[in-house]
């Protein structure tokens, strides 16, 4: 049943180049009932006492809303491994709960308790150390195009242990802070750096912050940053899901709170672009 051998060759001439386009569209979204969000990041800047700390309580809201509801009237405190309790008192009406006598200690274990709406939320973490930022280097051949100003902030990985770091840039030329999390699995014992090459110009001021974090917080932030803010729509994004942190509702497990409780030693350096 062999038929004539046919050779079919096709030539394609597409007279108009194909294109893809992105546009902003209206998509109706449903809104789930509001959940408590606990933003409890204790940061101990090297060379300071770390006595003053703030925890912020808010709730989830409509995806398109432009303001975030704050939570007032909660009881917030942290207990350390020695049983000492540090109370966080709300600046009235702000959702910000402030402590002025916190005592930070490397590798100490702390437990956060938040009581709100007759629900008790707790989380436990330890305070993670961080190396100092050694030096800053500026080059003119950075960025995607290779001709932009690039600034690198160098630090020495803590040797012979698995380390996780959160890095943050606040720059005068962007409105939102830029976060990234790194681990030393590809860099063990090496000199590591954070770099910024975001349309920098002379006299821009960059505030670089390096924070020591736990592996569970690294995993949390890695997922969170993948779905957060301006990252939506990246082809590398993880399958979307609500990101759960380490805060457990002891009263009703299903009514969980969002956010994370973590404690970091931090180092910060300010650099003016030359």
């Amino acid at each position, binding site marked *: 049943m062999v038929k004539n051998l046919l050779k079919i060759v096709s030539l394609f001439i597409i007279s*108009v180049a194909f294109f893809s*386009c992105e546009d902003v*569209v209206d998509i109706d979204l449903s809104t789930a009932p509001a959940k408590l969000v606990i933003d409890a990041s204790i940061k101990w800047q090297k060379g300071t006492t770390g006595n003053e700390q703030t925890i912020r309580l*808010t709730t989830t809201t409509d995806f398109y809303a432009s303001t975030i509801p704050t939570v007032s009237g909660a009881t917030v405190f942290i207990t350390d491994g020695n049983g000492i309790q540090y109370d966080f008192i709300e600046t009235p009406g702000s959702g910000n709960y402030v402590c002025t006598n916190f005592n930070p200690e490397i590798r100490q274990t702390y437990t956060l308790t938040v009581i709100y709406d007759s629900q008790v939320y707790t989380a436990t973490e330890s305070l993670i150390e961080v190396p100092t930022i050694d030096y800053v280097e500026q080059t003119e051949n950075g960025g995607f195009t290779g001709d932009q100003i690039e600034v690198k902030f160098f630090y020495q990985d803590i040797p012979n242990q698995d380390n996780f770091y959160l890095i943050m840039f606040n720059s005068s030329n962007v409105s939102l802070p830029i976060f990234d999390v790194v681990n030393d699995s590809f860099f063990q014992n090496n000199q590591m750096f954070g770099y910024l090459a975001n349309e920098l110009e002379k006299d821009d001021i960059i505030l670089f912050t390096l924070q020591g974090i736990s592996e569970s917080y690294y995993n949390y932030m890695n997922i969170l940053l993948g779905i957060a803010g301006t990252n939506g729509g990246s082809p590398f994004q993880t*399958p979307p899901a609500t990101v759960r942190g380490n805060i457990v509702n002891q009263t009703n497990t299903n009514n969980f709170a969002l956010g994370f409780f973590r404690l970091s030693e931090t180092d910060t350096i300010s650099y003016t672009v030359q």
Partner: protein
Amino acid sequence: MYYGVNAIYHDFNPGKIKPTNSSSGINPDQLAKKYAFEPSAYIDVEQQITDKLSINYGIRYSKFYRLGNEEINIYANNQAVTYNPDFDIYEKATPIGTKYYGKNDIISQFGNFEPRFSVAYILNDNSSIKASYNRMSQYLHLISNTQSPTPLDVWAPSDDYLKPQILDQVALGYFTNLNDDNYTLEIETFYKKLKNRLDYIDGADLIANDDIEQVVLNGEARAYGLEILARKNNGKLNGWVSYTLSRSEQRTPGRNSIESGINNGDWYKTGWDKLHNISVTGMYKLNEKWSFSSIFSLQSGQPVTYPNGQYQYQGITVPTYGQRNENRLPTYHRLDISATLIPEKNKNRSWHGEWVFGIYNVYSRKNAASISFRQNQDSGNNEAVRLSIFGIVPSVTYNFKF
């Protein structure tokens, strides 16, 4: 009767991590290469029982050997994914050790019988019915990284953690010719059940991941539906209309009574679910020189997961999500038309050429390839962004055969 044997050797190279220049702080790494061998044998029998009844049955036996050399992670309780009941989340397990397998050592092996059976019965000169059952096993897993159709899919061979997929499928069909074979009508219904369909845990990271077993769980999938195809076979105008009503779902329940499973262990629509799928094709032959055709297709939008809220954490805006794949992209539809010109000088020579003038997506519908959500960098407000590929595309094609 037919029979045969077959063997495939698989060699996977998932890629390398390398520093882009000598001053980079990256330590280079090769993602583990993987090897597998898949032999199979089959036998198939066709049997005419009576004038009207014929049957076809057969069986295939396939083996799958996952081979070294490779270093395999060992996990406590043989679980590469652990469940954290406090937070109700699945997490990567930390290997408690590794085991090295030398070249061509067997890491794990599987064997499966794949029976098949079909029966056809001729009702009368114009109509017949057909029923079939078959089982298939698949040893390679395709794990899609994202919901948007990017080429970033990961293929992974079966091993102790990624079990082979077993598909059972039944179908029942009715075929009839009407009006002196001018029209054909085919109606078919099917049900498929798939065991060991991989599903990624929430927040899975699939790119350059050497330990894919740490972010996936074995679940199950099912699909069922009804297909109707009506065809006009003769005349200057012919063509067909097809309609499929179907559902494709999956679920991954917890491995024990404590675990909640992925998506709370509930069934949810897979990314391939198309509730409605309509296609209309028409061809009109004007004369020996010119013919025209058009295709219209309409499909339910792809299931996706949209945010159901937002919150702020450390100054960044984070969306929240409900159940997986509860939303759908907007309905997809498109019309393509084309005209074919066969030049008359073709007739008496061996070289046959034809010109096809086409227009893809005639009314230039911006079908969404994906809808993503982001925070506008200037206003700080959240917005939905549609990515669409191809508006209207005219084309000219020259086909020739010799």
